[in-house]
């Protein structure tokens, strides 16, 4: 894919931004060492340099396979990923110091493992970019992907709790010390399937039967698929004991449905169904208990985390309270990287990593991180706006929205905004599944943004995927071409 003369690819900007991100990561590592060891070791730059090499390698792959891809995505994600590795390494250092052990090696400890996982995740992302040259080819495997997605979602619920349950939520497959979260990968598969399904069915689903209060509502018989997914997500809620995951899948489906049909009624129906279901689950948890008890517990804990009976109960609000106290201790500016006590927060390497970092980088640092996430989501949505085919639009929009929703669910949970659920914080949390799945997601967005931003061959090249688009109707027409 040679560059069209006179067009901007944004690749040099990407490299520049990447350098900036890596300088921040290196500075973070240096500050951690200064606070932990009272001096900066001569090797403080090694993790940042290794990460830089990895990201530059990905950058080179993009140069050859997706020349016009969005230049902001990789540096922003690289910054978050790098800070995550740095923070995990910081926890390793603190533990080594406490146990009077020597400084852990570059690939040792949780931080080192995260570095290795980053390598694996970037390899996967590169493979995706190399193998899938046109995102529309994915739609050929839509039904397979849909089946795979549902299987991935259901596996932990079907497996015995001893294999799948960690901290009350059944989201894992654990084999020995090794565990994967299949749900992370299911996101990607399900988005592709939903997008394909909705592109084909959007006409039917757009049909309105009745107008109520100025909103067109669909025909009863067209509610089938949305009810199916709703049931599925509530099953997830009950059997995997996880509200966040349920919200994620259902939100993903409703939003792609809304984008595909442009019918607000779907949003309303979806929201009412979801929150109605959640409320019923809460009531059932209070009265019947059984499989609903876990959700009821989480909700009561969320309503009053500082109550002694909630705090002292096993599986109560201890985690949430420690998270809030950590964040509060950090205050506006934080204690400085390496100078706090993040290990007081349970699960600080995974679910609560944002709270652990928040103690040290403060409200200002967390706000910056939040803006980075927002940037990624908005860039993903921009890729959806820019690409010309409906399938691409739905995939990019769905993926970007899900990422944003996941960030909201976990960060809202650990800051007490919504009931806490076990989700990973994308690109930050320790763990290979999350990192790999989310880098695959980014690779997909890169691929789609490349399609959207690439100048039409021969014609005048738009410098970016702006609003200069063909009329919307044509998007639908193009999908006919890609029928399997």
């Amino acid at each position, binding site marked *: 894919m040679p560059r069209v003369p006179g067009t901007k690819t944004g690749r040099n900007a990407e490299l520049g931004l990447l350098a900036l991100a890596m300088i921040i990561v290196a500075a973070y590592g240096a500050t951690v060492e200064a606070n932990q060891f009272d001096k900066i070791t001569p090797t403080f730059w090694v993790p940042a340099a290794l990460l830089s090499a990895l990201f530059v390698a990905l950058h080179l792959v993009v140069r050859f396979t997706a020349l016009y891809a969005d230049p902001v995505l990789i540096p922003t994600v690289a910054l978050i990923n790098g800070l995550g590795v740095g923070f995990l390494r910081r926890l390793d250092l603190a533990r080594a110091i406490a146990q009077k052990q020597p400084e852990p090696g570059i690939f040792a400890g949780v931080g080192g493992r995260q570095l290795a996982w980053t390598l694996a995740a970037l390899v996967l992302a590169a493979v995706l970019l190399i193998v899938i040259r046109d995102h529309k080819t994915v739609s050929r495997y839509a039904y397979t992907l849909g089946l795979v997605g549902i299987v991935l979602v259901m596996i932990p619920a079907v497996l015995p709790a001893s294999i799948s349950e960690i901290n009350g939520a059944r989201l894992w497959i654990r084999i020995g010390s090794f565990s994967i979260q299949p749900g992370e990968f299911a996101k990607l598969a399900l988005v592709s399937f939903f997008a394909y399904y909705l592109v084909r069915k959007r006409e039917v689903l757009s049909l309105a039967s009745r107008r109520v209060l100025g909103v067109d509502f669909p025909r009863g018989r067209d509610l089938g698929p949305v009810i199916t997914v709703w049931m599925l997500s509530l099953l997830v809620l009950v059997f995997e004991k996880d509200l966040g995951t349920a919200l994620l899948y259902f939100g993903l489906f409703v939003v792609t449905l809304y984008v595909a049909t442009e019918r607000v009624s779907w949003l309303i129906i979806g929201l009412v169904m979801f929150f109605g279901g959640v409320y019923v689950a809460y009531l059932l948890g209070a009265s019947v208990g059984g499989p609903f008890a876990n959700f009821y517990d989480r909700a009561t804990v969320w309503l009053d985390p500082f109550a002694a009976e909630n705090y002292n109960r096993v599986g109560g609000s201890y985690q949430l309270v420690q998270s809030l106290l950590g*964040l509060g*201790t950090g205050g506006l500016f934080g204690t400085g990287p390496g100078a706090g006590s993040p290990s007081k927060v349970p699960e600080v390497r995974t679910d609560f990593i944002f709270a652990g970092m*928040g103690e040290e980088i403060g409200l200002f640092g967390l706000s910056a991180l939040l803006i980075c996430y927002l940037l990624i989501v908005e860039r993903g*949505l921009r890729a959806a706006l820019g690409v010309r085919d409906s399938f691409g639009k*739905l995939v990019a*929009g769905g993926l970007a929205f899900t990422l944003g929703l996941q960030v*909201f669910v976990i*960060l809202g949970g650990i800051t007490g*905004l919504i009931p806490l659920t076990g989700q990973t914080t994308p690109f930050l949390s320790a763990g290979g599944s999350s990192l790999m799945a989310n880098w695959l997601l980014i690779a997909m967005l890169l691929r789609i943004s490349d399609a959207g931003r690439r100048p039409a061959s021969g014609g005048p090249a738009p410098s970016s995927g702006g609003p200069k688009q063909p009329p919307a109707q044509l998007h639908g027409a193009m999908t006919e071409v890609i029928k399997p």
Partner: protein
Amino acid sequence: MNAPLRKAGVVILVLFGLLFANLNWVQGYKADEYRTNDYNGRVQVAEYEVPRGIIEADGQALASNKLTDDELKYLRQYPKKQIYAPIVGYKPVNLGEVGIERAEDEFLSGASDKLFADRVSAMFTGDEAGGGNVVLSVRTKAQEVAWKQLTGNERGVKKGSAVAINPRTGAIQAMVSMPSYDPNPLATHDTEDAAAEYKKLNADKDKPLLNRAVAETYPPGSTFKVIVTAAALQNGYDQSTQIPAGPLYTAPGSGAPIKNSSAGTCPERQVNLKEALTESCNTGYAQLGVKLGGDKVKKAAQDWGFEQEDLTVGSLEGTGLAVAASRMGKIQNPDGSTDLAGLAQSSIGQKDVRMTTMQGAMIAATVANGGKQMRPYLVQQLLSPDRRPIYNANPQTLRTPVSSDIADDLREMMVSVVENGTGKRAQVDGFEVGGKTGTAENAEGADDHGWFIGFAYNDKGEAVSAVCVMLENVPGGHASSEAARISGLILKAAAGQGGD
């Protein structure tokens, strides 16, 4: 499709806006509250950065600190374990403090206003200020003897308590509660272990965490006769006044007759007051109480400290261990008239009369101090971190229930109890000892409680110590004689003799 995509973008923007607003709430508005929250372990790290003050008695450390490698720098230690636990209490990492550790927490931690100057000077010198030290009034010899004798009692009693007071000052010389507990596992930095230990102790049916000396009340039995005697002396009786006695007495309106402890106890129709107390004549005191009337008996009890609900023993200026109120109980019929049968029972310390071991010791101390009841205290001195005295206990008279003349009569009569009567086992060579035994029925089929309250004068005629020993459910009868024996040994040790 672009319009809904943009709207989806707006939704994300709103969600992130909520996150941002909530972060401002948590990290801005609530930050100070969270930073100092009790659940915040970081507060503890700071608290444990400086050594907490020492709690000591007679130059021995009862609570001290050990430097550790933990995140919490100093570990609180209790070298004497069970012996002092009911007094000193403990300072756990996560749970609430107990005992003197709680009452003097501000001073021990260094946060007290009394240590303000020390904190300022530490700021300039750069030394770590640390907390102030607490010197207890406890005589370690008396405490150790009391602990040893109580736990090694000759009757195999499992539960009981003892208190010894300096009658002239109110300084507590010994306070033992049995069974006790080792505070060290509760103060460990491993909060899970500490919580498990607390749970275990709390579930123990013998209640080792309960300070039986101050927090539990029991029927006082015949020790209560001292108060009825005082009431009689205040109402025109003297030691030689003849009072009706006899082997049996049935109060008006009651079917169950009151008996004496043995057939040889006051079978005569009349005995004098001194003999009645010396022999612990139940029929005599039951009739005496009925004769005096409920109001006078009640008032006497109140004069001696019964019904006081806000007494604490610690520093005379601040808080301390709460002492449960001793009670007379109701002696009224439903129609408002005096329940004479109940009054007869109450006059020998039964029915609903309840007393703490501390109250028992205070009664004996008041007699020994010429009728003046001194407020009991545990904190003798507060020392700054560099051991400069900041507070010295200044003895306070709590109340004066009887004149010194009546107190002298009571003293003579109580000495007669130990020399000629039921309290012979409390005798100590070289000291004039007086006292009163008590054997209290408590529950259907249960062994009686054994009591002794008493005092000792040295050869210079100074009251050196007053004591109360209480043994729960003493098997084998004569419940009070073991209490009297232990009391004698505690009095001796408190007077500076005996012990190791």
